């Protein structure tokens, strides 16, 4: 008989800028070695995953980490008193730091996580990437973090246009001149704060990798993919698994050198001369993770096993040429569901 775990998952925003929550839940429901009861943790009361069938067994609203980690932990403590959570999988960049800092507190509550260490999380920040590249011997485009508009005039001495202008968590725009950099700096800093990162633009094809490190230098899962269709926010709306061995080597090398712990997504540019530049390292499972599951690597299942102190075997292969295509779908709900969630914070 399979054990049954209660797993709390955030990121139920299955919108055109999707969080990984729903695909993670789908993966966990297909786990071979355990059954699950899923507790959805939602920040907003219109996150689609709240209302989707066969997704969360129970949903609780939680406060944004920006309101303070004490408030968030109190809420988790309350939810845990009702649900007895075994594992928590946070899926938003912006909440990871709070959950990492609260790892011990969560453990005391009996809740396991499997997240990168603070050091791993901090040193791969977009603003720190060039240093990261030097430290671990990785090809990374030159970039510079800027904090105010006066820095924009100086970047012309260090960069050739076009350049990428990026927010510290999300958003990236290609700018061809200082006026555009100014425009994007304002747009990004209002939304995500500073620093804003200016990154050398590398011409080539963007490819992505989802991977899972066991924290000891071993790669448990790795699947590369190329986006075939993107939304106007640059998010994958369709993708296909690749058989490029170099991407797997780069990922395994990074995980080995950094002893990466947890899920990760690498964003890589492959140039026409077959050079590979890492442009971003996201310290969490990406929203397209279900493609990896479809290709034969149930990475969320392996992550749960790691969180519970088990030693899952590394996946040996995956299917090349597996595709995913997202779609939108109108769910019909009732005002009473919305009412219940809004008034009680539970559904």
């Amino acid at each position, binding site marked *: 008989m399979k054990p049954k775990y209660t797993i709390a998952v955030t990121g139920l925003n299955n919108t055109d800028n999707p969080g990984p929550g729903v695909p993670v839940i789908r993966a966990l429901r297909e786990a071979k070695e355990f059954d699950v009861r899923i507790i959805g943790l939602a920040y907003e009361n219109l996150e689609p995953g709240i209302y989707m069938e066969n997704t969360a067994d129970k949903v609780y609203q939680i406060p944004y980490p920006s309101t303070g980690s004490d408030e968030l932990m109190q809420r988790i403590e309350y939810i845990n008193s009702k649900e007895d959570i075994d594992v928590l999988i946070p899926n938003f960049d912006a909440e990871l730091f709070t959950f990492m800092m609260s790892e011990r507190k969560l453990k005391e509550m009996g809740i396991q996580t499997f997240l990168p260490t603070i050091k791993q999380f901090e040193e791969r920040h977009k603003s720190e990437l060039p240093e990261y590249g030097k430290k671990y011997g990785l090809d990374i485009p030159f970039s510079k973090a800027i904090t105010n508009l006066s820095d924009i005039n100086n970047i012309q001495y260090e960069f050739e246009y076009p350049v990428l202008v990026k927010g510290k968590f999300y958003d990236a725009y290609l700018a061809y001149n200082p006026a555009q950099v100014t425009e994007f700096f304002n747009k990004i800093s209002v939304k995500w704060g500073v620093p804003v990162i200016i990154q050398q633009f590398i011409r080539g094809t963007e490819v992505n990798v989802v991977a899972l490190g066991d924290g000891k230098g071993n790669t448990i899962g790795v699947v590369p993919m*190329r986006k*075939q269709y993107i939304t106007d926010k640059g998010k994958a709306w369709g993708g296909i698994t*690749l058989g*490029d061995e170099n991407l797997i080597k780069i990922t395994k090398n990074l995980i080995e050198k950094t002893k990466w712990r947890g899920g990760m997504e690498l964003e890589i540019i492959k140039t026409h001369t077959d050079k590979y530049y890492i442009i971003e390292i996201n310290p969490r499972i990406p929203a397209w993770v279900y493609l990896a599951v479809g290709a034969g690597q149930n990475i969320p299942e392996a992550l749960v096993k790691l969180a519970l102190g088990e030693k899952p075997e590394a996946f040996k292969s995956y299917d*090349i*040429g597996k595709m995913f295509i997202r779609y939108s779908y109108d769910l019909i709900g009732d005002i009473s569901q919305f009412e219940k969630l809004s008034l009680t914070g539970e559904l």
Partner: protein
Amino acid sequence: MKLKKNIAVSETGFLFDPNSGESFSLNETGKKILQFLKEEKSENQISEWFVKNYEVDQATFENNFNDFITVLQNFRITE
């Protein structure tokens, strides 16, 4: 001229490059050329076969063949 070893071509002429994720549709002629390249036939052998089986002279075929090879090289389907 050698095709990359993991290039897949289906019976319907659908070509998939697993390295890049790109896919292409080939017409009958393209499909035949890819089949010959997979079998590592020489340019002369390929040319002879086409001149024998199609209404085309050698010079015209070779011009078109070279154009097609350039396209394959541009898409990095050959080694």
